[in-house]
């Protein structure tokens, strides 16, 4: 955490595992932001809320859903931007290879 605040990037070996901040932000995006953006999106659908009115009444109305949806989508956009910047800093090609094949490159030690 202290290293993060000092803008020190992890060593090559450490970089193949996720640190605390990364894990927390992934958890937040997957468990909070995505469900919230789907929920507020459905709450703006006149047809969907006719079948499941609680989607919108729990949020206090369609306009509240709309405001929440806007800010959650901004948060997701921010996440994507930071995510892409981090991928570039950590080595674009090796990271893309890892994302697609699910394993680090041949010259990397697996951790």
């Amino acid at each position, binding site marked *: 955490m202290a290293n993060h605040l000092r803008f020190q990037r992890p060593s090559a070996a450490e970089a193949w595992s996720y640190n605390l901040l990364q894990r927390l932000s992934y958890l937040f995006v997957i468990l909070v932001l995505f469900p919230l953006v789907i929920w507020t999106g459905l709450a*703006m*659908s006149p047809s969907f809320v*006719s079948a499941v009115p609680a989607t919108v009444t729990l949020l206090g109305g369609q306009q509240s859903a709309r405001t929440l949806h806007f800010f959650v989508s901004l948060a997701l956009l921010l996440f994507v931007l930071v995510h892409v910047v981090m991928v570039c800093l950590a080595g674009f090609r090796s990271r893309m290879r890892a994302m697609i094949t699910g394993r680090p490159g041949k010259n990397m030690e697996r951790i």
Partner: protein
Amino acid sequence: MSDISRRKLITTGLAAAAGVTGLGVAAHMAQKYGLVPPDHAGIFGFGETLTYASQRLLTRHSLAREFPRSQISKPPLANEMPPLKDEFKRLQAGGFADWRLSVNGMVAQPASFSLDQLKSYPSRSQITMLQCEEGWSYIAEWIGVPLSLVLELVGVLPQARYVFYFSIDPYWWESIDMADALHPQTFLAYGMNGDELPVGNGGPLRLRLPRQLGYKSVKFITHLTVTDSLKGFGKGLGSASTEAGYAWYAGI
């Protein structure tokens, strides 16, 4: 290549074949049960089809949310619109006494109704939200006759699948499927908040479709056509707004 085993190759191949077959069957079933919207082609076509099909399966009979009288918006928003044509102004000067709603197409008896005739039928009211795709919304009490009552009076033929509705403004026309046309909250509205429907809100006669976005609630309705095909109306996409890139089904 050494990483890909024969077993993996066979399972992947079988899964892909099953997937393609599944998609084919799904497309066939969707066609058969009328779950494919007219704007199913193009980049957004798959999304439009998925939306329309799932809404038709899940929300065919659901009722739009109705609000207590205390939540009616004051004043009801009259959004900006293109200037009204001379024909409209002439009818307006006569207090809309000569306003007609004609109905033709796949009906037993094509008919034409005056506003007074429409008002003589049992009126219904609903307090629902009009929600625009631009983001604004307002809640109002809408008074009118259910579209289903008018369709019943003219005797819709069993093979009918869509109802087109046309504004006095030739650039504004829409269509809906029979599930929406016969829905109890689909109104031909002539009144609002206990009064006449103001021109700014679509008076003297507006279609109200509270389960879809505002642009499907066309103002200044003069004509209905019942049909079994969207072909022959414009480009065959079902509405002027679909031709302009909007979704045909706007339940979202």
